[in-house]
């Protein structure tokens, strides 16, 4: 994707109408493009105005629940740029997943996860064998992070607790870098052959016994994609070939499975 193409993605990016591969690529571009940063801010402001057309009062019980819950939540520190900074400045305000969300929300999510269909394709012995490999823990950056704007992807790659899991697939490699503290993971692929016509490579995170879709990775000599979803709680990641547009649950045998444990 050249710069012209990536720039034309600004509107879709501003309103979250991109897939994870595009988001990662656009954020890499955004970090160094002040023109796009300004455009994104103005387009988000315009999009935010659309909510004026859908105003609906929430029930009073919601207010009570929210006010009750915040009293037990610590406000995160501001982003600082000293060498000791734990959190590099984000290009866009993040809406992180909420590992510390209140118990009520978490338990509801867990309940839904239990009701979800079990992942059949993990049950096989071959899958189990695949999961038994990998698990190399790697801390690539132990010193302080530089005080520059980092994309979410870069933050994961630079995280102090970054763990690295690698898998070879014939000529291709898939490397997952996961930061439990950031609750995010990035996949770096090399030499991934083109998917069959009308098919895409879809990413998955294994949450308990369920595979939860985590985005897409394009074919090509080298790609880096931020996985969608809660990486910290995942037991592993998978890649499958799915029909274009992706699937809600894996429908075809995995290309690769990478265990985090």
């Amino acid at each position: 994707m050249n710069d012209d193409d990536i720039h034309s993605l600004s509107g879709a990016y501003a309103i979250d109408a991109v897939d994870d591969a595009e988001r990662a690529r656009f954020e890499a571009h955004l970090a160094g493009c002040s023109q796009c940063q300004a455009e994104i801010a103005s387009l988000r402001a315009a999009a935010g105005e659309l909510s004026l057309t859908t105003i609906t009062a929430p029930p009073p019980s919601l207010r009570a629940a929210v006010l009750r819950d915040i009293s037990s939540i610590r406000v995160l520190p501001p982003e600082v740029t000293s060498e000791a900074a734990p959190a590099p400045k984000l290009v866009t305000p993040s809406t992180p997943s909420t590992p510390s969300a209140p118990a009520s929300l978490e338990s509801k999510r867990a309940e839904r996860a239990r009701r979800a269909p079990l992942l059949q394709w993990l049950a096989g012995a071959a899958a189990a064998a695949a999961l038994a490999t990998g698990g190399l823990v790697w801390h690539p950056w132990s010193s302080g992070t530089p005080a520059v704007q980092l994309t979410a992807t870069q933050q994961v790659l630079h995280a102090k607790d970054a763990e690295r899991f690698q898998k070879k697939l014939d000529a291709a490699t898939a490397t997952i870098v996961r930061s439990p503290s950031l609750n995010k993971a990035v996949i770096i692929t090399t030499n991934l052959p083109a998917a069959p016509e009308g098919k895409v490579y879809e990413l998955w995170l294994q949450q308990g016994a369920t595979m939860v879709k985590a985005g897409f990775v394009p074919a090509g000599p080298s790609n880096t994609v931020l996985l969608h979803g809660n990486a910290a709680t995942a037991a592993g990641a998978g890649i499958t070939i799915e029909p274009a547009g992706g699937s809600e649950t894996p429908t075809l045998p995995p290309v690769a499975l990478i265990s985090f444990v």
Partner: protein
Amino acid sequence: MVNMTLVPGGELSPVPETRALSAGGGLAGLLKACSLGDETAFAKLYDATAARLFGLVLRTVRDQAQAEEVTQDAYLDIWRNSARFDPDRGSATSWLMMIGHRKAVDRVRSAEATRRRDTAYEAREQAAPFDQTTEEAHRNLDAQRVRRALETLTETQRGALELAYFGGYTHREVAIMMDLPLGTAKTRIRDGLIRLRDTLGLEP
């Protein structure tokens, strides 16, 4: 809609909620207070914005119970990240709605929501997007202003923007749903947002 709304920095008065919001600067001040742990300021922030954020989330996830859950989640994130709001990078309203929107989109795209997703149904439902609003919103002057601005968009721009923003679909999905050539939907979305921005007189 007319609520008894606590205007940021003002007093309790019957004002349209969005009029209170258009004061704008007050929300940034409330966020600043939140970042210092001020729960009273957060309650004011909630009162001034909840109907707008909840309405947006509900429009996207469509399910009342899920919309409440997502809205709660969004406000907890807003509280948690209040120290990271940077007024130099956009308005408080824009930041709040972005968080709510992202949460809603995450929800509809997650596997949990699969059973509620029916592309054909959605596409039909979305055919007359901006006619589905509440009577309250119709009465609201700000809603009318936005609605008029939307009318300046081409049909394709408006349809693509609607599917992407309220429907939570990616531009690639929008292209398929609207029978547009791949790569066209993202351009329509961008062009539509730019026209909306310029018509509403927002700073580029």
